[in-house]
């Protein structure tokens, strides 16, 4: 019919460089991504101009929620198991090996010792349902936080202590935590903050 046939191969372009780049980026992001564990409370940290980065390991995080509840978290699965055994021995709570293993993988928690065992017996899905953890007691009458701090420092002497407070938490809650730390001779600790946006000032 005299029609000009379009060349078959011409519309397919060479995708190779694009694919190369895509896979390079995929590999990069896959290797750099670290999934943050799900925290029981959302904390809106205040911002500061400080530019010291928080180290990745040997960190004990004390979280203070908006309502003033205190949460405890420590990294290192092995040291956590040791810590739980020591705390159990002190408070006379017996933990089974399964419970210890679960505790080692737990994100931060805010429960008094007598409620911890029951919490560890829950299934992971049930644990997610527990949204209003009361916080670790840390007032002058009944202070479990100081025992957690002492025991975790025994379990891991290299530990650095970081306080992660919600910006709108009332100061007395923070004061209790700081007082507990100073009482336990922890005079040097870190306050976790966000980086201040420079556009602000």
């Amino acid at each position, binding site marked *: 019919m005299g029609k000009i046939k379009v060349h*078959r*191969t011409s519309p*397919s372009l*060479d*995708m*190779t460089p*694009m*694919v*190369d780049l*895509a*896979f390079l*980026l*995929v590999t990069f*992001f*896959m290797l*750099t*991504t670290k*999934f*943050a564990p799900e925290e029981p409370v959302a904390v809106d*940290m*205040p911002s*500061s*101009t*400080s*530019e*010291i*980065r*928080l180290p990745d390991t040997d960190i004990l995080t004390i979280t*203070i929620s908006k309502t003033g509840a205190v949460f405890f978290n420590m990294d290192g699965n092995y040291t956590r198991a040791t810590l739980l055994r020591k705390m159990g021995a002190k408070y006379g709570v017996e933990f089974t090996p399964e419970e210890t293993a679960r505790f080692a993988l737990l994100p931060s928690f805010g429960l008094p010792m007598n409620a911890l065992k029951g919490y560890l017996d829950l299934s992971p899905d049930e644990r997610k349902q527990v949204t209003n953890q009361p916080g670790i007691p840390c007032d002058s009458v009944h202070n479990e936080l100081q025992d957690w701090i002492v025991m975790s420092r025994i379990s891991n002497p290299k530990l650095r202590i*970081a306080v*992660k*407070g*919600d*910006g*709108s*938490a*009332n*100061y*007395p*809650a*923070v*004061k209790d935590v*700081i007082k507990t*730390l*100073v*009482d336990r*001779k922890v*005079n*040097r*600790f*870190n*306050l*976790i*903050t*966000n*980086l*201040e946006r420079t556009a602000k*000032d």
Partner: protein
Amino acid sequence: MSEVQQQGGGGKGDGKVRSKKSSTRIDMTPMVDLAFLLLTFFMLTTTFNKPQTMEIIMPEKPKEEEDQPLVNEKKVVTLLLSKDDKIYYYQGITDPTVEVTNFSKDGIRKILLDYNAAIKDMTVLIKPADDSRYKNVVDILDEMNITNIKRYAIVDITPVDKNLIKKKDGGETATK
């Protein structure tokens, strides 16, 4: 990668059997789809901002009977952090004149810089009141960092300071 160049190598009529041009081509579209899907996923889930930290050193608990270093009260500036992001500040300890400011750039920062220039070896006492928020404490520590003040301490608020705030607030509403 998957495209093999068929040209070149050997003369034209050497009678070698050549594979067809299109046979070596693989349809890469599904692979590319997958690659971009993963790329998008990882890009969206990655957070690059690692939290910053602020190091703070609290004074050691004084042992009993141990004499504390004496400070010239003229060199002491006290900041009282109160509710609604207000800062009450005064210099000296006996019968101070209390002023109010806020956390803005022209507020506390300017005052601190002025004090720092005027007073040699100034000591700043930060006293967060019970109705102040944690953010205020971090902000004021940050200001200490910015204004390069090295001698400061976080101290518990005393009833005297609470009265000063009350007096200042009372005086302000009366003049209005």
